[in-house]
């Protein structure tokens, strides 16, 4: 509902302000305000922890813990899993990014609830079935998982964090994310347009 309004009513500030008083989901924040807030969160992570934000790393810890529980010898013999398992004297789930991502779920829930934006739905364009949208979401997620691990981080850990630290690999990564997305947008237009 609100997504349709936001896709078509681009930066239509007066309309948005009016919508604020109406019932239903509130409009999204101004992108520069949201971006400034996001930047301050990232800066606080740098200042407090000496590290940035992340997302995909938490899922890697989850998988490493799962593989370790089912087949500990297999996990120990694989350098990718071993890196997330650490010394083995504490659970790989007692990890900074795991707790941060639990916070991301909570923060999204708080913001969504305050704005009346929690609505059970499937995000899709008008010309794709629900079933295919769910299938594409899974395929895209899998590519995202593989790409993020190959690149040592995703949009959060590389583009955002490394972008702010002027990390060479992060900037190369970020350019390629946009290149890959724009190159494939035409092929996926039926899913979104």
């Amino acid at each position, binding site marked *: 509902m609100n997504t349709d309004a936001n*896709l078509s009513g681009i930066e239509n500030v007066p309309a948005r302000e009016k919508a604020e008083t109406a019932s239903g989901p509130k409009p999204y924040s101004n992108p520069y305000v*949201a971006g400034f807030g996001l930047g301050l969160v990232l800066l606080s992570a740098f200042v407090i922890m000496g590290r940035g934000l992340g997302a995909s790393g938490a899922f890697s810890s989850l998988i490493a813990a799962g593989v370790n529980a089912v087949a500990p010898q297999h996990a120990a013999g694989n350098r990718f899993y071993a890196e997330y398992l650490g010394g083995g004297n504490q659970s790989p789930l007692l990890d900074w990014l795991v707790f941060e991502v639990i916070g991301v779920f909570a923060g999204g829930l708080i913001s*969504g609830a305050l704005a009346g934006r929690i609505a059970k739905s499937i995000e899709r364009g008008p010309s794709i079935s629900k079933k295919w949208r769910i299938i594409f979401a899974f395929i895209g997620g899998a590519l995202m998982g593989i790409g993020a691990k190959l690149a040592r981080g995703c949009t959060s850990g590389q583009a955002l964090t490394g972008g702010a630290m*002027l990390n060479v690999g992060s900037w190369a990564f970020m350019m390629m994310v946009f290149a890959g997305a724009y*190159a494939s947008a035409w092929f996926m237009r039926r899913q979104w347009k």
Partner: protein
Amino acid sequence: MVHEEAMEMSAPFFKFGMFGDSFSLLLAFLIGIGFGFALERAGFGSARKLMGQFYLTDLAVFKVMFTAIITAMLGVFYLGWIGFLDVSLVYLTPTYLLPQIIGGLILGIGFVIGGYCPGTACVAVSTARIDAISFLAGVIAGIFLFGEAFPLLEKFYNATPMGQVTLPGLLHVPYGLAVFVIVLIAVAGFAGATWVEKAMSGRKGA
């Protein structure tokens, strides 16, 4: 301006031993709340909003991301310059150029097919987007596949290592100059993004 007394370096707090591992996990949770809150406020719990970037109807992804990057970049630079933050203690992921270029390309393709990235998908799950649950299941499957295939991929994963390197370090320009140029590029990008949005909405209305 010359400072009368050099300020005592005291950040990053964790690296200076101001608290331990257990407390850092509580802080991780709190920082995560801020992260998720900001992403949801921006509208990034909606795949259609995110995809507006790639169909040029809504460039919020670029605007939010680059506002966040320049905010944090200027903050780190300034806090380093006044001697409060030891920038060298902030973790920098080492650069492995080729796998990061290929990984970025795969991730970009996955973004448009899947509609989210891992962080935004978490927020979308919190706001009850069913497709985001499927997306995260895909992420888990993808990382598992990567993990299982790691012995085969390891050589490529470690190809073209450049170490921990920043743009000013690579180009031999002062840190402040690099920061300044990126701010200029971002501001020009914001103006360009708004122009593109207007042009696209005009086309739609015609």
